[in-house]
């Protein structure tokens, strides 16, 4: 079955990103397809490559990136939510005159249309958040 996942909560806040990751992993393990993972609202914080948790803690960003790389997942970050919260890629840095970027290369910034398309194209949209 074709799934899409929506994450509305930042990493290390409560548990939404962890739950979404475990769900996505379980779905992939069962042979299901993940059409897209869409990071919305505070969920965009899951995409900064600058995150540095203590060594004995999970690295939520790298964990998503690794799963994305392994399964060729489309990890999409909402542009308006990203701009508000300072999640920046090369294009956004240039457009908005920023002096740095922080997005992990496994993620991409795009618009809300990507969420609508994911909802239309997928048989199930599963939402995790606050």
């Amino acid at each position, binding site marked *: 079955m074709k*799934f899409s996942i929506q994450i509305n909560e930042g990493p290390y806040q409560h548990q939404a990103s962890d*739950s979404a990751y475990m*769900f996505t992993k379980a779905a992939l393990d069962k042979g299901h397809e993940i059409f897209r993972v869409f990071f919305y609202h505070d969920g965009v914080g899951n995409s900064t490559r600058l995150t540095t948790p203590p060594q004995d803690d999970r690295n939520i960003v790298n964990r998503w990136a690794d799963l994305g790389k392994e399964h060729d997942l489309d990890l999409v970050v909402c542009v308006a939510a990203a701009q508000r919260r300072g999640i920046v890629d090369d294009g956004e840095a240039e457009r908005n005159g920023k002096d740095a970027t922080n997005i992990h290369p496994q993620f991409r910034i795009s618009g809300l249309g990507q969420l609508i398309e994911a909802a239309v194209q997928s048989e*199930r949209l599963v939402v995790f958040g606050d």
Partner: protein
Amino acid sequence: MSELHTVNKSPFEKSSFDSCMGHVLEGSAVLLYEDGVYAAMQGTTAEAKVKSAQGVKIYVLGPDLKARGIDAARLIDGVDVVDYAGFVDLTIEHDKVVAWV
């Protein structure tokens, strides 16, 4: 048309569990996960709502129970424990997923 409703907050923190139980229809199911698992415990004010849900199956996510030190023996009768694979199966068994976030 059956729905899987998911509740991830404690019924003592937010009203999402109450809202969910007020909307869920017969033949649908509710999955309690994260802090939502507290609603599945015996002896709380949530118990009556779980028990009075006619024709609604209640599930609870095992790993989240374990993370909170809740033994399955303390669950309300009729509540079933699932793992993440079971969570995935529930989303497939029902026609849509409604997240009470």
